Structure formats: C-alpha cells, structure tokens
C-alpha cells in the first residue's frame, strides 16, 4: 500500500506536533527564554488529537 494510505503512518502527522512541542519546551529552557507551559501543553495535546484524527480518517476511508 502507498505509504500515504497506511493508517499507521497517519499517526506521524500528529507526532510532528508532539516533536514541535518538545522542541519548543526544551529550547526555551536551554536558551533561557520564557517557558510556556500553556503552549507546550496545547501543542502536545494537539499532536495526540491530530494523530487520532489522521488515523481514523485514513483507516476509516474506503478502499479505492
């Protein structure tokens, strides 16, 4: 199956946001910038939600 059609790969879309959240949090700490707990939380949860959404949309789509 084409990689873009495999449901498991759809989860990577969400994972991207979790990675961004991690980078956001870590770099802010390391660089002594303002550490934004609210933003980190929202981005991380967005990653989880988007992974779930992408998975159900791809897995739930009809075969073409």
């Amino acid at each position: 199956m084409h990689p873009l059609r495999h449901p498991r790969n759809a989860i990577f879309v969400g994972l991207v946001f979790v990675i961004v959240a991690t980078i956001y949090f870590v770099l802010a700490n390391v660089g002594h910038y303002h550490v934004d707990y609210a933003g980190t939380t929202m981005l991380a949860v967005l990653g989880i939600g988007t992974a779930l959404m992408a998975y159900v949309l791809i897995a739930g789509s009809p075969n073409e």
Partner: protein
Amino acid sequence: MTSPSTVLTTGDPGHGVAEHNPVAGLAHDTRGGISNPILGMLLFICSEVMFFSGLFAAYFNVRATSSPWPPVVANDPVLTEHFNLHAEPFYALGLTIILVLSSFTCQFAVWGIRRGDRTGLIRNISVTLVLGIVFLLGQAYDYSTIGFGLADGTFGTTFYTLTGFHGAHVFGGVIMLSVILYRSLAGQFSAQHHDAVEAASLYWHFVDVVWIALFSTLYIL
C-alpha cells in the same frame, strides 16, 4: 443507472492487508471504511480532546507560576490543608475505579451486540449507566466535602473547572447511555446495525481516559 453508494463491495472491509486492522471491529460501510456516524463521533472526540487541552494548559501554566503548589494560604491553615489533595487521593481513586469498571462493562456491551447478544447488551449498558451515575453522585459528594470552592484562589478555580467540565461530559455520556438503553430495550439494535452503541461507547471510553489524565494530574503529579 445505479448510484455509486449502492454498489456493494464484498469481503474485506479493511484495506486488503493481511495484518490486523485495529478498526476491523467497528461497524463498516458497504464501501469500506468506518461508518459515517462512528467516524463523526471519533472526530467529535478529537475536538473534545482539544477542549480539554485548553483547560489543562491553563492548569499547568498556573501551577508552573505558583510556588508552592498546592498553594499555602496565609492565615488559613485549614484551607491549605484542604488543598493538599495528595494526602487523600483514596476517594478520587475510588471514583477512578468505578469509571474504569464502567468502561469495561461498556465494552462488554459492544462485544455483546456485535455477536447479536441483545440481553448482554442491555445488561452491560445498564451496569455502565449505573456506574456512571454513581460516579456523578460521588463527584457531587466530593465537592460538598472537599473544603474549598471555585473562588478559592487559582487552585479552586482550576480544580472545579477541570473536574466540573469532566463531570459535565460524564453527564452527557449518561444521557447518551440512557438513550442507548432505551433503544436496546426497544429492540432497535442488531449485530449488523448498532452504530449508536459503538459511538456511545467510544465517547464513554474517551470520558474515562480524560478522567485518568485528570486524576493523575490533580492527585498524583
């Protein structure tokens, strides 16, 4: 000329791959894929996840900028004592067990109707419903004895908002389960047609997962 949606596909409703398809159990469309109402419920759950993300974001932000946490209230050691949820997690743990159990019974109900077992469906949905109501009553009792209110600083505000909105979602789930129970008693579900049961159970599992996150955050972390 037949319209596209009446073309029936036979056999594998998944993706033609030999590996286990995690959504294989969910009710399927004739054309393949998850049925529309269930997909809709799953997407709704995604949106609800984001709703709670805003509330959790507020909580973590407030907590990270307050020292100490739980807050120490000058001149009010009793209130400070009440804020210390870590000392007394057992009641909340009891609520957690009730909700987790209800998720199990809900899933038993789904498995039942997938097999066509209407009696099993009714029994398990009833138990789930009762457990859900017990949870709500338990939460209300907790509120009445916990010793602080919504207006008691940011601790009170975040606690009541998070648990309150979770409770509201449980209440929504209880209503959904009541409708499912009614429809089950009326014989409206079969092994081939029970989308509403699947959808309601997915929502109920979501509510349970949120509670586990809440419980861990408020009482353990």
